[in-house]
């Protein structure tokens, strides 16, 4: 492609490269990324450093900007579902659900009881799966490589369940407006029950290995603090927001599917530091296990989806739906001009807002703190860039 050129990173105003102080010392810049092990993908951070102390972090985005919103304007509503798989690929089921809900809202499609149960079941499995991967990656970022493999080992069990359910391990494309594209396979619920038992054991093991580890606590406690007001102002949602005390969980406060039928708690942090973000996610996994136990206990019979529409021609208007992914509030906004394809589609990604608070969190810390903060933000870069 001839348009490929290296463009110099643009620096924000008031951002000079050299600053010599009275004692002759200088600040300097370090480019972290786009290929760097701790940025979890292709995020680029321009870090202004004073020795090893971070003075300022400027994230540069767009290294995986794939024009999903533009493409959405040329794909049908149902085809758009599969693109959201590729945004936050660790919450792909939940992203699919968000799109389906927006279509359902627009066209007045109902979901049968069993379909709703499948939705909650799969969403919560997905949440645990995503948090497991995050837990492993967190361990790896902080240097505990074994934790990475333990996290993946547990996650693989859920991935295999998903493969049985919908045939894919990562990009699911499973939910459809009105339900899902298939019923749960035979014996699935039994396997989920087994998994939940194993999960409780693994979570205790995780606590022993990492949560109660002195080094981790030292490295995370009080690092990357974000107050409740700032977190809300930055639009931080999900575990990042809740660790800072933003008491908002779409599942509880704007319930979709049938989340209002299940009992669960929303864990909140008090310090808004890395440790709180860590503990909130661990607590969320336990809450998800709790929800899943209620789901499998009351899993109903019946049809798994409602009558399929001949075509999805969405009446003119604009439609918004919000779901709680593993990272926070995922919003889908459709503008339709009464056709088969959306006129404009916008996906509100939780990571986008969560990352924007990075500079405020990382200032004054060390490079190692920056890594810990990035890790507890649990970023999925394609979700930010879309």
């Amino acid at each position, binding site marked *: 492609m001839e348009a490929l050129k290296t463009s110099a990173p643009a620096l924000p105003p008031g951002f000079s490269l050299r600053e010599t102080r009275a004692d002759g010392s200088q600040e300097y810049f370090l480019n972290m990324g786009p290929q760097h092990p701790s940025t979890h993908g292709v995020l680029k951070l321009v870090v202004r450093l004073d020795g090893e102390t971070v003075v300022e972090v400027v994230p540069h985005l767009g290294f995986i900007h794939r024009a999903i919103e533009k493409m959405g304007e040329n794909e049908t509503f149902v085809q758009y579902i599969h693109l959201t798989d590729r945004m936050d690929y660790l919450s792909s089921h939940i992203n699919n659900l968000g799109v389906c809900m927006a279509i359902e809202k627009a066209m007045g499609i109902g979901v049968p009881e069993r379909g709703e149960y499948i939705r909650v079941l799969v969403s919560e499995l997905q949440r645990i799966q995503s948090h497991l991967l995050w837990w492993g990656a967190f361990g790896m970022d902080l240097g505990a490589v074994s934790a990475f493999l333990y996290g993946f080992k547990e996650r693989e069990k859920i991935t295999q369940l998903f493969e049985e359910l919908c045939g894919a391990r990562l990009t699911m494309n499973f939910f459809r407006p009105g339900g899902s594209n298939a019923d*749960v396979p035979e014996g699935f619920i039994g396997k989920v029950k087994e998994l939940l038992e194993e999960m409780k054991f693994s979570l205790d093991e995780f606590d022993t290995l990492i949560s109660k580890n002195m080094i981790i606590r030292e490295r995370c406690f009080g690092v990357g603090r974000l107050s409740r007001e700032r977190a809300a102002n930055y639009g931080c949602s999900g575990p990042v927001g809740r660790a800072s005390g933003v008491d908002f969980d779409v599942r509880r406060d704007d319930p979709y599917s049938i989340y*209002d039928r299940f009992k669960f*708690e929303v864990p909140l942090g008090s310090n808004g530091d890395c440790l709180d973000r860590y503990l909130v996610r661990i607590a969320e996994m336990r809450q998800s296990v709790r929800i899943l136990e209620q789901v499998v206990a009351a899993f109903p019979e019946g049809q798994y989806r409602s009558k399929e529409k001949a075509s999805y021609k969405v009446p003119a208007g604009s439609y918004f739906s919000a779901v709680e992914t593993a990272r926070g509030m995922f919003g889908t906004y459709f503008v339709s001009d009464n056709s088969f394809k959306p006129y404009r589609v916008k996906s509100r990604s939780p990571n986008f807002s969560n990352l924007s608070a990075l500079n405020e969190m990382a200032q004054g810390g060390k490079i190692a703190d920056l890594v810990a903060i990035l890790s507890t933000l649990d970023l999925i870069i394609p979700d930010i860039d879309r």
Partner: protein
Amino acid sequence: MSEETPKPDATPEVKPAEAKPAAPPPPPPVTYPRSAGVTMAAAPKASLSRFLGDAFGLFKGMNVTMRYFRKPSRIVTREYPENRGTLKMSERFRGQVVMPHDEKNEHTCTACTLCEKACPNGSISILTTKNLASKRVLGAFVYRLSSCTLCNLCIEACPFDAIRMGHGFEMATFTRDPLDLILNKTEGR
């Protein structure tokens, strides 16, 4: 419970069409303030006993890794090229689109192009021809594995069950061209 539910490809009993069911009553509105989130305990203050507990915690952590080391039965590795004979994909696994052919080497594709339209990536080209009876039939079902995302939309769209998801996954090639496939072995009927 779930064991008795019909498989997705089986046809469930067709119930007589009813009049549109009446909307169930909306759930009772939840009034604010809602149940507040549970704030977790902050980290305890520094003390000697905490320090000793933490130091002991390090040994407990070492015990976790040691448990894995001691028990080779906890190794979960599946040895892929060696286990090729026994490796079985789950039934719904989506590996690539295949077109089943019967013993007479015939398929059931009618070149209706529903799959072509359903494909979000333009991975399918239905190329038609006219057979001896001057009927429009399938000439070539071009399937570009190189751009296929295995999203299952074409299979859901097909009303004739002419294409399915195959379980093959060993498809790596040295060049890009062999990834463009023609699925049908014969022309349509």
